[in-house]
């Protein structure tokens, strides 16, 4: 499903002294099947933006289109539940949403709400558990006796179980150990690639944005500040530093290396390993 934002503005608590414009006239287009990273400093409007993607917020001004569903201030969307079944949102610290007695019941909670038959849910759970890196022994345990990382995996499984066609990931790896972070991101990336699921990732990690995203949108104080392919966006170092963001270390390194040794190594989305290989070839 394509996603289009057209001149979207959102105001919290309008007409009070606490009025706050969280989004200002934001427009962009996300084609179906792409992997988008949304980055920005704290308070730049990222969380507000993603809440528009499944109708938790409706724009104060402007229009949001997700596939055939339109969200605007004028008309209330009738098929809200349908939209929510197609957009799977993984919020920050999703383990806070667990409440059922067993892991299995909690994962089944979403699909049950969307009216998926029990037999299908069972099948889906069996498929998902290995994907999120949990064994089936967990299914009968209480989610509250698991470790933080395991709880996170259960919560993510609960979102995946609804079989969405869009993933919205709000810092899904925050608070995990480095290994867990990489596993989690690789899992989402794999699902995105295999099933062509449109993925929107909100992140503070420029490295992740560079590594996974086809396209980057940078927000600053509620406005769209920059957008483009990661290898293009990250070249504009001074612009990026202006909004208190950092260019990924690999690109910084490559730039400095080129300056110092007068080489012309190209800036693509290569990993540290690939950079090392390229350099060793020039030596």
């Amino acid at each position: 499903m394509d996603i289009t934002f057209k001149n979207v503005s959102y105001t919290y608590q309008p007409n009070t002294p606490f009025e706050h414009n969280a989004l200002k006239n934001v427009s962009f287009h996300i084609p179906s099947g792409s992997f988008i990273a949304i980055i920005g400093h704290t308070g730049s409007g990222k969380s507000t933006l993603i809440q528009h993607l499944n109708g938790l917020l409706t724009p104060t001004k402007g229009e949001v289109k997700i596939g055939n569903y339109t969200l605007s201030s004028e008309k209330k969307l009738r098929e809200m539940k349908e939209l929510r079944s197609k957009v799977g949102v993984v919020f920050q610290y999703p383990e806070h949403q667990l409440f059922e007695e067993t892991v299995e019941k909690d994962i089944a909670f979403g699909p049950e709400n969307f009216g998926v038959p029990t037999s299908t849910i069972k099948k889906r759970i069996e498929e998902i558990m290995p994907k999120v890196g949990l064994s089936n022994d967990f299914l009968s345990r209480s989610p509250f006796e698991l470790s933080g990382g395991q709880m996170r995996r259960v919560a993510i499984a609960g979102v995946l179980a609804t079989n969405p066609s869009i993933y919205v990931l709000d810092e899904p790896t925050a608070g995990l150990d480095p290994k867990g972070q990489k596993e989690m991101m690789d899992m989402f990336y794999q699902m995105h690639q295999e099933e062509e699921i449109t993925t929107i990732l909100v992140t503070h990690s420029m490295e992740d944005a560079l590594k996974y995203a086809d396209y980057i949108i940078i927000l600053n104080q509620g406005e769209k500040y920059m957008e483009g392919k990661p290898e293009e966006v990250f070249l504009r170092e001074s612009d990026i530093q202006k909004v208190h963001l950092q260019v990924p270390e690999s690109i910084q390194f490559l730039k400095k290396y080129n300056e110092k040794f007068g080489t012309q190594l190209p800036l693509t989305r290569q990993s540290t390993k690939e950079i090392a290989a390229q350099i060793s070839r020039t030596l």
Partner: protein
Amino acid sequence: MSNSMIIGQYVPGTSLIHKLDPRTKIVIIFFYVIVVFFANNVLSYGLLTTFVIITIISTFIPLRFIIKGLTPVWFLIIFTFLLHLFLTKEGPVLFEILSIKFHLGGVIQGLVISLRFCLLILMTSLLTLTTTPIEITDAIESLLHPLKKVKFPVHELALMMSISLRFIPTLMQETDKISKAQASRGVDFRTGPLKERMKAIIPLLVPLFVSAFKRAEELAMAMEARGYQGGEGRTKLRELTYRKKDLFIFILFICVVALLIYVRS
């Protein structure tokens, strides 16, 4: 969610009212609430209304905002007005609709009671609008201090109050976050039969309680780690001190009260 609720919402400012000692404000409000019931004629109500309006203006809080905050109690005000309109049978009959007689006494009584309501609510909401919850708790602790002699746990009470006040916004945020997460998983809090909506509360309440207990535990640990042992010998960062402006406001208030007693019939 709670956009129209202003009771308990603090609006930062630098007006004279904001800068008063919270104890002054609480004591004045306390006596004001009693004094409102002394008013019994046009002149005395006029005096009180003027007093309230001047106080509101001097806080520099937008009037629109204060009036909006009255929305939850409008119903109550209108209800009392109607009650008096229909039930008070005093004075000459004003008009008659469908053989129900409306008396002048009823209209006046209804208006007076509604006005009294407004006067009370406006003034008391000004207290929380111009005073931070922490200031209010400090003031209550200080005002209740004499009760310590009869072994009343003043400090503990104040601490409990400030902790609960401190965590109201946190819990509200948490509720908002969890309800959004569950709404994304297909829970419908707004529509559907009552039974279903009651059931929808469970996925909200369980995580909320879990996190509240966790938070309480963490807070207790953090307090102990910083050497908290209760009120004995504990000093304060913000000492409350009465200043000249407090005296000034007190005298002003006493003048208003004296005038009120003079003009009431």
